């Protein structure tokens, strides 16, 4: 091949790669722009202040779904974060690099990507079917199941970044191991762990599949976690599939709120990591 054709070939390949990058950017702008444009025009105070009107009647809002989503996510965080945090601590601090540690780490990595729909059917079988009714608790537990492996793996990674010399210094002062972990190691890794928790909240806040058969949905305002509780994501699913324009409008508005919430958390998490660990 002559030098000229080689240069042209190279230039062509680089142009194609740049185009691929632009395609990725194009989808992001297309989707986000669409959600922002259609959502922004539908956001009204009554969306947050009112409950849904009976089917087919114009007006109303999604107050029930906002509150429900908040409750379900809050309890999922309360269940999932401590388990993930302590589990990650065990792997990083007690278990060393042995076989069991590697197996649990690998299993968590796999569980991070396991279909969340399957988690929904699992929780249905153990929490909804035996009791005979949908419940907010079941929704929270389903989300917590999705959350645990995420928190566990980030905690493990962040704790492993804390230098051993720091632990040794604390041991040398006579501190028992649990004190070393809770008062020295946790402090060193706090930013990373906190970010991991933030990102795991962002991850589950947009989940729909695990809630479909667990917390289900509810057209009325309810904070009773023992019964079905409305969530934003399931409401978007129902409203978007529904026949009314008014519903579609509200679904777009809810989509905008949830997207902005999740993107904001993701960006904040990134900034924390950057401030603490430099360019990574």
């Amino acid at each position: 091949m002559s030098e000229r054709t080689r240069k042209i070939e190279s230039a062509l390949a680089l142009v194609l790669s740049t185009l691929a990058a632009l395609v990725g950017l194009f989808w992001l702008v297309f989707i986000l722009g669409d959600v922002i444009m259609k959502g922004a025009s539908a956001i009204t105070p009554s969306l947050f202040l009112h409950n849904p009107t009976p089917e087919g009647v114009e007006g109303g809002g999604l107050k029930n779904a906002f509150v429900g989503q908040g409750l379900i996510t809050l309890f999922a965080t309360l269940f999932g974060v401590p388990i993930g945090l302590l589990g990650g601590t065990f792997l990083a601090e007690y278990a060393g690099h042995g076989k069991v540690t590697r197996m649990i780490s690998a299993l968590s990595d796999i569980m991070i990507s396991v279909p969340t729909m399957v988690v929904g059917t699992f929780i249905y079988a153990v929490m909804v079917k035996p009791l005979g009714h949908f419940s907010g608790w079941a929704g929270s537990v389903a989300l917590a199941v999705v959350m645990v492996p995420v928190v566990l793996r980030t905690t493990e990674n962040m704790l492993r970044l804390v230098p051993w010399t720091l632990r040794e210094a604390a041991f040398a002062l006579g501190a028992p191991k649990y004190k070393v972990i809770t008062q020295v190691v946790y402090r060193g890794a706090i930013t990373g762990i906190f970010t991991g928790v933030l990102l795991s909240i962002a991850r589950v806040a947009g989940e729909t599949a695990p809630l479909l058969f667990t917390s289900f949905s509810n057209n009325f305002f309810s904070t009773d976690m023992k019964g079905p509780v409305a969530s934003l994501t399931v409401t978007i699913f129902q409203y978007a599939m529904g026949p009314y324009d008014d519903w579609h409008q509200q679904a777009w508005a809810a989509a905008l709120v949830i997207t902005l919430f999740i993107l904001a958390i993701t960006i904040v998490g990134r900034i924390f990591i950057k401030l603490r660990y430099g360019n990574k």
Partner: protein
Amino acid sequence: MKFKYSPMDWVFKVVTAAAALTIVVIFAGILFVLIRESKPAIQAFGVFKFIFSTDWDPVKESFGAATNLFGTLVTTFLSLLLAMPVAIGIAIFLTEIAPSFLKGPFGVAIEMLAAIPSIIYGMWGLFTLSPLMGNHIEPWLQNTIGKLPLIGILFQGTPMGVDLLTASLILSIMVIPFTASIARDAFQLTPAIVKESAYAMGATKWEVVKNVVLPYSKLGVFGGAVLSLGRALGETMAVAFVLGNNHQITKSLFDAAATITVTLANEFTEASGRIYLSSLFYIALLLFVLSFVLLTAAKLLLFKTGKQENPR
């Protein structure tokens, strides 16, 4: 010398160990419960007969997984086919082309694409992409590629926008960021000195990518592709809106279909009858096993390249 042993130490260790074991318990629990719940269907339809049967008839209570598996596999592979070139292009752009002031912001943009929840993809697909596909892109495809022999058969039928092609396209957009970020990480593992030697031999940038970086990182890129397959396999909400839940094995990409996840989302709460519900658990079990196998394979591949996947 022995440390002063505090009983709190023992308690803390046991509590953290129990927390770590929860992962194993959840995993085993899912497997056990799904098998238990699908037992009636396993007894009624067997294993191979169930997998290869195209029946999905709630009235006669006769069920098979073939149509669901068909939809799942077609959308998954097609989405990867569409996503792979773009993802690798993005990875090349990020590692070799982009000036350093662009790398950060562009990386964030791709990460944003991964952070958008799947329900948003689904809704956008239903209201924006699907009409666009049905009215413009699919008729155009039909008039160009659809005229070719052999391949043409994939583009038959009335373009409605609610079909395998639209669903696969949405899935591919979702999968691009995962594949791209793993491919980028794999590319970055190529030692600079190997690349520099190639440049010193007079190789062009593309030749370095093609002959040095890609061979060096192929395991990682392949692992990323398998991981993306695993992700696409279990995706629910992004495809639930635009696939039509049609229990048939079809020839054209312009036909509606059903995946395991879409069937579950649409029929689970309405399933009446023990066998019906049990069959739904059965396909959930198949999905669980399938994605576990794929993700384990991806894990092993990525482990070999010495780079762990980023927990998001």
